[in-house]
């Protein structure tokens, strides 16, 4: 057997190993999803979505949690997007030379790896206690914003980096200032990438439970939150709450709520993919 | 119009200016011969410097075009042709100057009868005509016009061949006028060479327009082509 034959065998061996790994992951996901759907799909109806939580599993609904989730998503977006994009632009385009920027960069990378429960503790202390927001939507959204800020910053930087330097040079050579170049060229050209990063970050925020529990989000909310200062619950907490009950009916409710939560994140991911494709088609280098 | 076209057009214009000057020299030379006008002859000799200056300028222009534009195909043949035509024109200018010098050296008028029997005036006119024809062919890029010159050259050859016998005969009868007669023979020889130059230039024109090499071929072949 010569070396090229051995190489081919190795090549094939790795290919099948890779296929096996991929299939394993997909199969697990499929089993999980299938299980959830079989258990929960029948329970989903309009009443399930519009009812308040109840001690009776058949009458319980997810309205406050769903609205809470949408509130959290909206508020987090409002707080995190401008901060994240601005910071990303600064780090990528302005702060390249300074030592401060280098320090910030390292810290941001580190922040992305901090466990979310720690963010919860941070949020509880700063937003909940020091700033006096308590267990409000605002405190929750601020905490989640901190959590996803590194993701938005990093994805903004990546998107800006993907714009060919020739475009930047052309703009500078036309007499544009840095800000004009960012505003007229870099942001439009990197819009697809930035928006994708934002949506993926938000869908992560939507799924977070731990920090919100630490903040003090409620498990039982008999009202629909109407302003950012209201207390709230979110879907993951509702699910967690139901799962921990002994009755079989609540387990079914949890499965149904999981389906709703998954739908929300899938829809968001779908939008992200759609936007990315659309902008990639529009901007070809 | 491309940059190279502009340069080539300028080269052509310059070449034609030089050519016209040489043709004018030829006409002046003829007049000085017929009228034994020594002032005119002197003028021809002086003007020869201008012809030489043109030659140097065209040489330099061609060199620059080769170096800067790297012409190819018809453009390349054109510049090559101009380079050689330039040489031919300079030679023609020298020949005319030589004729003018003879005129200066001759003491007395040429015998009109001698002029008549040697057909030198006719020859002069023919040579002049050839140069004009080739110039026109060059200007209009007309190869059929250039080909006419081969025919016209036969007249010059004919006169040249017969001149020996005629001159010898004349000297025998008029031994007192040997100097002038010998000058006339030389003039005839020179005029024949003007014809050759014109012919060469015609060949160059055909070379550059049709990419055909006619050098060293018989007259019959040339006319057939």
């Amino acid at each position, binding site marked *: 057997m010569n070396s090229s034959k051995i190489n081919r065998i190795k090549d094939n061996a790795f290919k099948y190993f890779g296929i096996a790994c991929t299939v394993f992951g997909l199969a697990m996901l499929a089993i999980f999803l299938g299980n959830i759907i079989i258990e929960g799909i029948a329970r989903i109806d309009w009443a399930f979505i519009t009812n308040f939580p109840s001690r009776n599993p058949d009458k319980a609904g997810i309205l406050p949690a769903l609205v809470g989730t949408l509130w959290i998503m909206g508020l987090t977006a409002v707080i995190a997007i401008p901060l994240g994009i601005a910071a990303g632009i600064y780090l990528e385009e302005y702060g390249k030379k300074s030592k401060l920027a280098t320090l910030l960069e390292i810290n941001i990378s580190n922040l992305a790896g901090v466990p979310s429960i720690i963010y919860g503790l941070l949020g509880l202390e700063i937003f909940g206690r020091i700033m006096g927001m308590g267990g409000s939507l605002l405190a929750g959204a601020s905490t989640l914003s901190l959590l996803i800020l590194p993701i938005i910053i990093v994805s903004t930087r990546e998107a800006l980096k993907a714009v060919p330097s020739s475009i930047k040079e052309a703009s500078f*050579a036309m007499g544009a200032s840095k800000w004009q170049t960012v505003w007229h060229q870099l942001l439009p050209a990197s819009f697809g990438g930035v928006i994708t990063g934002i949506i993926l970050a938000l869908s992560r925020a939507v799924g977070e439970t731990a920090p919100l529990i630490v903040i003090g989000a409620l498990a039982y909310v008999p009202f629909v939150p109407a302003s950012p200062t209201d207390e709230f619950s979110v879907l993951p907490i509702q699910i967690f709450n139901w799962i921990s009950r002994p009755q079989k009916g609540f387990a079914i409710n949890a499965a149904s709520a999981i389906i709703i939560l998954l739908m929300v994140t899938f829809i968001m991911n779908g939008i992200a993919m759609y936007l990315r494709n659309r902008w990639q088609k529009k901007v070809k280098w | 119009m491309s940059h190279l076209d502009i340069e080539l057009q300028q080269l052509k214009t310059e070449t034609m200016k030089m050519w016209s000057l040489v043709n004018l020299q030829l006409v002046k030379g003829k007049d000085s011969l017929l009228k034994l006008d020594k002032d005119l002859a002197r003028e021809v000799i002086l003007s020869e410097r201008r012809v030489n200056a043109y030659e140097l300028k065209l040489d330099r222009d061609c060199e*620059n075009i080769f170096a800067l534009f790297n012409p190819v195909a018809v453009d390349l043949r054109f510049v090559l042709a101009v380079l050689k035509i330039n040489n031919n024109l300079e030679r023609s200018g020298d020949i005319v100057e030589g004729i003018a010098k003879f005129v200066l050296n001759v003491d007395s008028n040429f015998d009109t009868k001698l002029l008549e029997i040697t057909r030198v005036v006719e020859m002069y006119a023919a040579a002049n005509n050839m140069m004009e024809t080739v110039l026109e062919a060059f200007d209009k890029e007309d190869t059929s016009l250039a080909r006419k010159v081969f025919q016209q050259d036969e007249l010059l050859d004919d006169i040249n061949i017969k001149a020996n016998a005629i001159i010898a005969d004349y000297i025998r009868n008029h031994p007192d006028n040997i100097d002038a007669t010998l000058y006339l023979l030389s003039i005839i020889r020179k005029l024949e060479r003007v014809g050759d130059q014109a012919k060469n230039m015609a060949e160059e024109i055909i070379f550059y327009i049709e990419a055909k090499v006619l050098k060293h071929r018989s007259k019959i072949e040339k006319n057939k082509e």
Partner: protein
Amino acid sequence: MNKLDANNVNVFYGSNKVIKDVSISIKQNTVTAFIGPSGCGKSTFLRLFNRMNDYIDTFKMEGKIEIDGSNIYDKQIRVEELRKQIGMVFQKPNPFPKSIYENVIYGLRIQGIKDKKILDESVEQSLKQAALWDEVKDKLKDSALALSGGQQQRLCIARTLAVQPTVILMDEPASALDPISTAKIEDLIYQLKSKYTIVIVTHNMQQAGRISDKTAFFYMGELVEYDETKTIFTNPKQERTLNYVTGRFG
């Protein structure tokens, strides 16, 4: 008077000296070509004139570069203003991913000009000057990226002309183009000479011969020879220049 003047210019990237004591004077309404092997510093030197090297972190410069007698590296000089006066065309056509119209008026737009009439006029005039008007006049709203490479490059030239510079720097503007497009760009440069001072970097020696009035030969960061293009190509004074232009290099 000289349009551009460089005096004893040294450029460093970190501790690496890439331009060594170069002085050059460039007259108004001429085409000057910078030639030399790759890495000889000709592009770096070109980019000094509109301060495009400023973005390189380790860039450091000594000496003086003047336009119309004023030092462009003076602290008083605003780089944005300088670049309106000294336009640049790059090696690879780099139109913005916008419409043809928006590309041409980009320079005016960032200057804050909004008058539609002025913008329309500028588009037509610039595209005509760049010999592109007839090809694109019916599709000004189309994306510039749909144009061919040669058209894109002429669009980039039009975009540069729109801000009415006095000097145009060109960094190998035809090296990414086919021969026909190259010839068009060269004709264009020849025509633009009457209104602008053009400095062009080129790898293609024949191109330098065809379009430039003066040629500067760079080698290893040094300006080896600077003379009339005719002289450089027929009778260069330096042996290194001779070896380069005759292709007997190295």
